[in-house]
């Protein structure tokens, strides 16, 4: 495997491949910093990893066609959805194209957006709920 240009991150939402409407995909996994600094820290702060969390950020091209991405999101706000992403332009999970799966809270949708003359787009950032898993096969 080598460095790569992202041209085909496969993204699914609740089992539907929505990659053809996705212009940017990002999955972030964090661990909280828990301060354990004490008088033995020699004047430096010390931290350990706490609770993990994550977020999924996606940029979309609006499309209100039947079963297309905009119509799909309309009824999902407030629900938990399953997002999968396959990294490195892969189409199936493998050691070099791992597939990440996250349950997310679909807490926003922007049904109307875009300046005059521009392609109509919208962006979302969903917090994950529970473990973010990944598979390599």
């Amino acid at each position, binding site marked *: 495997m080598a460095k790569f240009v*992202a*041209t*085909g*991150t*496969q*993204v699914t939402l609740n089992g539907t491949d929505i*990659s*053809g*409407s*996705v*212009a940017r*995909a990002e999955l972030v996994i964090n661990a909280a910093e828990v301060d354990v600094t004490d008088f033995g820290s020699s004047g430096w702060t010390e931290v350990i990893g706490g609770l993990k969390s994550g977020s999924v950020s996606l940029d979309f*091209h609006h*499309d209100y066609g039947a079963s297309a991405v905009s119509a799909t999101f309309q009824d999902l706000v407030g629900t938990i959805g399953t997002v999968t992403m396959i990294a490195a332009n892969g189409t199936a999970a493998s050691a070099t194209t791992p597939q990440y799966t996250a349950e997310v809270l679909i807490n926003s949708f922007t049904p109307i957006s875009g300046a005059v*003359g521009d*392609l109509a787009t919208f962006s979302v950032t969903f917090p994950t709920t529970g473990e973010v898993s990944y598979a390599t096969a």
Partner: protein
Amino acid sequence: MAALADIRAGIATNLATISGLRVSDEILDNPQPPVAMIALNNIEYHQDMRLGTKYNFTIQVIVGRAAERHAQRALDLYVNPVGNSSVKVAVESNRTLDGVVDDLVVESMPDVGSIQLNDTTYLAADFLVAVYV
């Protein structure tokens, strides 16, 4: 995936709704004004994670010899944002080209002026068209 030839043909079909305007979906060696010619400027690939593509075209409308007053009056009608002779209205009259593309828009008319063709000075205007596939 739309074929480039189909996109050109679709734009030409839309332009042909302007009465009296000849239309070519390619650059002509010896255009006979008034004529609209469709030229591909560039293609922007990777607009999404699959095959999303943006095609940028220039439509050059040559209306007649630059010194002719009727050519200037005709150009006024072609560049108008409204009206039966409006290039913008004609091109956007069927924005999906009957389902060939997702959408198209006439973005601007950045150039108007005289051009030299076969030792004759013609009046012409360029229109930029963005096509989303």
